[in-house]
């Protein structure tokens, strides 16, 4: 295991891979800093640039964005009190009070070093668990795959902030999108209404870019129209004793490990992401603390829990995509699309068939962390100037990159039309309060669900096999349990607080 990993370190350190990794990490940090620009949006912007690169170079750039983005959000969270992205929300609770108290450098570097250490601890899990989990997944037949995908969808639908019903409906709409076009078994056109545009169905990436980019940009435009603009601040003094900060983190080993484990576990679960991980880790840190009343006043524990968990979350998401071929969140969903463009199919056979790329991903993930530290050190003060760039300048440029990303997939305008169509769909979904994550997972898994369902039934017509085969039955039972738990959770929350308007991307 470690031999190929060290070889991959040498490879990723070559300029051809290292430059995209550094640029990706820098772009991720900037994207993380900008309030309202999520990591998904940042990775969508970077996506077209990866088309012309070697597959590993493209993936290194995306991993850089992912790691950098998770760390960049803490800058605006701590200095402006505005989370740069959803996975830095909990950092705001203690980072901002600490910065306001006159310790902005301590707040930023506690978060940065906690991200670094949490991320590297997550790397042990990534490197150690991906192979065994992929070997386990090799035992899967079509019954198990079908049940796994159903489980993934039910989990995502249940864990969205909107109601369970809306989560399930959103997932079902995603699946319906995939039945438009030519059917995968007999090549019969379905629901095309005689249109050439619909004949080949919708490619996954234009759908994803359209839905996520427009849902976010148009919601931002509503805010611009309402006159809401981000505050700007002068660059503060971020000087700090790094050894003292690192000691502050390492002197709390239980907090650090537990937050890392929470991040990993949330990352492994499909499509939940860092936004849940950081809040959950913060909540756990508060519950187990000897002085919970101090949380929210600017104590290091809150920052460490949040930042260690959201970076280890990246490792968990990468495990899921590499071992099972299921994206751990929206960011890995875009990475999945990029891998497909390069002819790489993640899943149980990925490690054995593409060891060069798999170990390259491990190496890029690990190397992205020291790169992130160096960039944060060089640029932390500069980022705050970027926050002042008006949205009126950023939005048109982002939309141009979205168009290039969709068009460059196979140089056809049909993908750009699909981008426009699903841009409208994405915005409408947000306005109707339907969560986007289940829909995207439905679009990603739709074809595979159908193929495995049909394959299973053609192999043996007995539908009870889905329940009687142990792994398949176990996962279907887990699906039911996750739906029941979600129902119970939603009911409890509903009693505790009335529903609020939500824009759950």
């Amino acid at each position, binding site marked *: 295991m470690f031999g190929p990993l060290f070889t991959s370190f040498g490879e990723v350190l070559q300029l051809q891979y290292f430059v995209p990794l550094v640029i990706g990490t820098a772009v991720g940090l900037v994207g993380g800093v900008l309030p309202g620009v999520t990591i998904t949006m940042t990775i969508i912007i970077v996506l077209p640039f990866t088309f012309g*690169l070697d597959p590993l170079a493209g993936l290194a750039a995306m991993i850089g964005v992912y790691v950098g983005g998770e760390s960049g959000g803490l800058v605006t969270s701590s200095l402006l009190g505005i989370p740069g992205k959803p996975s830095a929300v909990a950092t705001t609770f203690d980072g901002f009070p600490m910065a306001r108290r006159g310790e902005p450098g301590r707040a930023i570097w506690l978060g940065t070093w906690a991200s670094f250490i949490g991320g590297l601890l997550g790397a042990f899990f990534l490197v150690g668990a991906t192979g065994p989990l992929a070997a386990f997944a090799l035992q899967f037949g079509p019954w198990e795959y079908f049940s796994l995908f159903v489980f993934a969808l039910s989990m995502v639908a249940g864990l969205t902030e909107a109601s369970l*019903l809306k989560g399930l409906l959103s997932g079902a709409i995603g699946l319906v999108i995939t039945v438009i076009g030519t059917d995968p078994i007999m090549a019969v056109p379905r629901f095309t209404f005689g249109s050439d545009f619909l004949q080949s169905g919708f490619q996954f990436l234009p759908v994803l870019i359209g839905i996520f980019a427009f849902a976010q940009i*148009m919601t931002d435009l509503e805010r611009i129209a309402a006159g809401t603009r981000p505050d700007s601040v002068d660059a503060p003094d971020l000087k700090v004793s790094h050894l003292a900060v690192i000691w502050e983190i390492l002197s709390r080993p239980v907090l650090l490990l537990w937050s890392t484990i929470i991040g990993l576990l949330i990352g492994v679960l499909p499509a939940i992401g860092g936004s849940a991980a950081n809040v959950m880790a913060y909540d756990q840190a508060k519950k187990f603390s000897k002085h919970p009343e101090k949380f929210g006043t600017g104590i290091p524990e809150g920052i460490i829990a949040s930042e260690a968990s959201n970076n280890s979350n990246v490792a968990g998401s990468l495990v899921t995509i590499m071992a099972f071929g299921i994206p751990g969140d929206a960011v890995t969903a875009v990475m999945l699309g990029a891998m497909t463009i390069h002819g790489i199919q993640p899943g149980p056979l990925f490690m054995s068939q593409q060891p060069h790329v798999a170990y390259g991903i491990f190496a890029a993930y690990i190397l992205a962390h020291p790169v992130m530290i160096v960039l944060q050190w060089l640029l932390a003060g500069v980022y705050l100037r970027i926050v002042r760039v008006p949205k009126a300048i950023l939005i*048109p440029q982002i939309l141009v990159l979205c168009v290039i990303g969709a068009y*460059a997939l196979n140089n056809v305008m049909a993908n750009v039309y699909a981008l*426009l169509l699903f841009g409208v769909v994405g915005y409408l979904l947000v306005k109707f309060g339907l969560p986007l994550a289940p829909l995207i997972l439905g679009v990603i898994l739709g074809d595979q669900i159908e193929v495995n369902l049909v394959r299973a039934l053609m192999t043996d017509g007995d539908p009870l096999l889905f329940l009687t085969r142990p792994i398949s039955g176990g996962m279907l039972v887990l699906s039911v349990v996750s739906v029941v738990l979600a129902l119970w959770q939603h009911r409890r929350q509903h009693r505790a607080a009335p529903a609020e308007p939500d824009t759950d991307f």
Partner: protein
Amino acid sequence: MSRDGVAGLACLAGSLLLLWVSRALPQPALVPIGPGFYPRILLGVTAALSAALLVSDLWRRGRHPERPPVNYRLVLLAFGIFTVYVFLLPLVGYRVATVLFVGVLQATLDPPRTARAWALVAASAVGCMLVTYYLFEAYLNVLLPRGRLTGF
């Protein structure tokens, strides 16, 4: 009816329409599962979920949270400008369409009032086109749309 009810009703109508359309899908003679098998199950589930959303909305009538008023003018304008851009791309090509799109959208989102602001809009539009065009075409070997009318 709140937005949940409207969403439920729209999805119910859509899934019932597609279920009706799926009747025309052929049933193969040799294999038991045809192209309509999976879509019918799926659309049945979608219709049931949509109906449940609609019913739950009607059940909760009068208990919907208040939502802040939203200004849709910029959203509609942005969608309109983007739509024109998408349809201009194959006609006038990436370079002309992108300069027009970036300039018009930026000027719409933050109307320039001084000569300096207009210069910034122009620089941003031309700069965006030049950087992306040369980066993608020359360095990343990604071909961008050519215009039928302009020839480039």
